[in-house]
């Protein structure tokens, strides 16, 4: 393989050359620096966390459906958190908090980006591994530690943090404010610091790899949309997570060092006057949402990229408006930094400022709509193959539309004053973020499973999983809109305590049963996933007839991805069903000279020599025709 010596830093190296690294169990499966293994580690950890967080949600859904019933089993399972078989009200808040934290950060940020950025960036760009494989490994292990610490808070006396996933002070700043504000909150903060460190290391690596290490011919405008989305996601993370660190640092000082950044004039238990003065809890909200809003796009953008890719492959059509797709992702990235105030309309902000945030918020709906229309146009008259991945990608679009529409309501300050902190918001973000991003992630899992594990998943179980989850998610979240319009607030323990909300009990019961059904549907996925890893049908090299580079690597994983030279890229990734072509797909590695019959003048934009060849070829074709 002498071709590999193209890299010319042939310098003598003494000490650090230990020759071959022997593959041991520890460095292959545990402390692996191979991006493909790290991707699998992120995926499996993410799925485990998702199941845990889902179980938490079922527990609090049971409480909402049967606030007055005792379930002895509950006490057996949860002990002091469910005395007499009824969920403790403080524990209810802890459940909601940890469910949100795990789902938003651990599953849809680390699990989603971590899996697909690690898998796809090197494989789709023709790179042997990340810029810094070591940092990449650290990033996974920091994430793992963060998971461990977060879950460990269930085993302490007073239970986990319970101030909501947004951890607003004063509940998060005064250790005595409620049971979850004590050690549970401390663990939450420690876990989050590990998590952010993990995300920063990962994000830095992704950005650097994408900008510096692409293979020959892979200019930015030949990158698949999945990589574009992961790239912009990483940029968002790198710019916004440090702001959360700043907010958390000040919070830690307030908690433990007696400062008053966020605290002011507080009396606990109606008698203990706290010594804090002059702080501003709103300051925390600014710092939190400056991260928090970009964070929701960190969650959805990889799902968008994955869906674009899956939908193009399975519609056998080029993605509609590739450039528009990229520019709208860029637009979302930029705009997402200037809309955070829409989470704070009711904090007493200056109405003029509220107006400014309202306008920026409504503007961000424009690139979102551009993407939606492009997806629909990609499907339009395509040769659609309904694989499981395709179904989930279409589901993602469906949820993004139905959840995005309600965002426009919420973005209007005047409407949001009514809707803020009601179930309407819960419905909005569970559709647009929760369901859409999970569906994007599942689309990715079904689509790239053969790449990750060398085997195929079962399609029938995939359909079952899709339909039950799709219907289930709508049954769970759609009714919540009406509850919100009626003013039912979020994060309440028992609505039966309020005369005006009693009537919603039947709806809550219905939602709970729908949630249980959707949760059971996930078992179909879990079984399919685990079973296919070991006993699935062996995958061919390019099971979906896709164009992108990852399908040119051998099915068996090797370190460095390609056994020989890294392939060169000659065309964009979306040459599906190109008129005049032999097959309905032309891989990125096929030079234009091999596809004379399908080339278009447009393919030679910055390539005058190629264009000349092309016109020569077409004119000879024409004259041949005339001769006939």
């Amino acid at each position, binding site marked *: 393989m002498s071709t590999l010596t193209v890299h010319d830093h042939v310098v003598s190296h*003494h000490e650090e050359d230990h020759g071959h690294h022997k593959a041991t169990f520890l460095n292959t499966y545990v402390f692996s620096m191979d991006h493909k293994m790290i991707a699998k580690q992120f995926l499996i950890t993410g799925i485990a966390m998702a199941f845990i967080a889902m179980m938490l949600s079922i527990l609090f859904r049971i409480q909402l459906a049967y606030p007055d019933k005792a379930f002895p089993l509950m006490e057996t399972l949860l002990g002091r958190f469910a005395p007499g078989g009824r969920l403790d009200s403080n524990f209810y808040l802890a459940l909601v908090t940890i469910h949100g934290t795990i789902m938003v950060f651990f599953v849809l940020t680390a699990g989603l980006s971590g899996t697909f950025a690690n898998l796809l960036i090197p494989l789709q760009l023709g790179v042997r591994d990340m*810029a810094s494989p070591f*940092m990449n490994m650290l990033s996974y292990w920091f994430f793992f530690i963060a998971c461990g610490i977060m879950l460990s808070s269930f085993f302490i006396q007073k239970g986990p943090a319970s101030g909501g996933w947004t951890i607003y002070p004063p509940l998060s700043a005064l250790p005595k404010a409620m049971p979850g504000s004590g050690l549970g909150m401390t663990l939450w903060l420690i876990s989050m610091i590990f998590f952010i460190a993990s995300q920063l290391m990962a994000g830095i*690596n992704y950005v*650097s790899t994408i900008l510096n290490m692409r293979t020959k011919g892979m200019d930015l405008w030949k990158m698949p949309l999945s990589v574009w989305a992961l790239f912009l996601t990483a940029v968002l993370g*790198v*710019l916004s997570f440090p702001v959360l660190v700043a907010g958390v640092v000040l919070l830690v000082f307030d908690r433990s060092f007696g400062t*008053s950044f966020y605290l002011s004039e507080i009396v606990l238990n109606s008698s203990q006057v706290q010594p804090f003065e002059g702080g*501003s809890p709103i*300051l925390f909200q600014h710092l939190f949402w400056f991260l928090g809003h970009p964070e929701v796009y960190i969650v959805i953008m990889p799902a968008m990229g994955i869906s674009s890719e899956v939908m193009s492959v399975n519609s056998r059509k080029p993605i509609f408006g590739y450039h528009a797709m990229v520019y709208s992702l860029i637009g979302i990235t930029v705009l997402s930094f200037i809309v955070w105030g829409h989470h704070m309309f009711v904090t007493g902000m200056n109405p003029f400022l509220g107006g400014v945030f309202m306008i920026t918020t409504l503007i961000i709906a424009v690139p979102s709509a551009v993407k939606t229309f492009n997806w629909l146009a990609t499907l339009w008259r395509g040769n659609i193959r309904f694989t499981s991945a395709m179904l989930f990608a279409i589901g993602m679009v469906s949820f993004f539309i139905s959840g995005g529409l309600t965002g426009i309501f919420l973005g209007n300050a005047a409407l949001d004053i009514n809707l803020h902190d009601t179930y309407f918001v819960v419905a909005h973000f569970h559709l647009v973020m929760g369901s859409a991003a999970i569906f994007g992630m599942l689309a990715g899992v079904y689509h790239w499973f053969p790449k990750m594990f060398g085997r195929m998943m079962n399609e029938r179980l995939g359909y079952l999983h899709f339909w039950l989850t799709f219907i289930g998610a709508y049954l769970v979240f759609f009714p919540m809109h009406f509850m919100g319009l009626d003013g039912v607030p979020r994060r309440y323990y028992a609505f039966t305590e309020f005369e005006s909300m009693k009537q919603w009990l039947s709806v809550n019961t219905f939602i709970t049963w729908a949630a249980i059904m959707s949760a059971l549907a996930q078992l179909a996925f879990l079984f399919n996933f685990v079973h296919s890893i070991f006993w699935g049908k062996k995958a061919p090299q390019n099971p979906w007839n896709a164009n992108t580079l990852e399908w040119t690597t051998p099915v068996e994983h090797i370190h460095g991805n390609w056994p020989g030279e890294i392939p060169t890229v000659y065309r964009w990734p979306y040459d599906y069903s190109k008129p005049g072509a032999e097959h309905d797909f032309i891989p990125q590695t096929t030079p234009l000279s091999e596809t004379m019959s399908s080339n278009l003048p447009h393919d030679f934009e910055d390539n005058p020599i190629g264009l000349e060849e092309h016109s020569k070829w077409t004119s000879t074709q024409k004259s041949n025709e005339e001769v006939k």
Partner: protein
Amino acid sequence: MMAQIQKEDRYNLAPKKFNMWIFIFTSFMFFAALTSGFIVYVGGSKAHGINIKLPDAFMYSTGVILLSSITMFLASNAAKALDRGKQQFYLMATIFLGVAFFIIQLSAWSYMIKNGVYFSNPNASQSFIYVFTGMHLLHIFAGLLLLANTLWRSTRSIEQVKNLYSVQMSSIFWHFVDIIWIYLYVFLLLNQ
């Protein structure tokens, strides 16, 4: 062939240097967030504000850190000129100045404490001074570790590519913490 791929990995230095640049962006966002937080806090009430004269020590520390940037610059020039001895001398000078900076900042804290400006303070604008300098000192500390590592490696006979790489990494970072301090100091002066 495997060994070949591993060699490529190990010498992928340009992307690793790029990693440092991105890290600097993240750090910059962190300080930008803290200073924006300060602005929001001060905007909240007329009584908020620094309301004291900043310790003179900050002026001296600014001088010291500027000087250390110059020695850092000389160290990387020496590294480029393949002059290990000179490189080590200037690295040591930079470390010395860095430690001096650290100590002067601490003395500024003790001066503030003596004058009744505590960290735990109902006027958090004053606590912010501690947060700015403290978080910056954390970066200084990291920078010192990086410099020490570079110095240590240069005393062992490592190849020039790696030596230069390690000098450049610490130099990028060190100039950055220098600039951040100047940013913070000017910010504090403007809000005095």
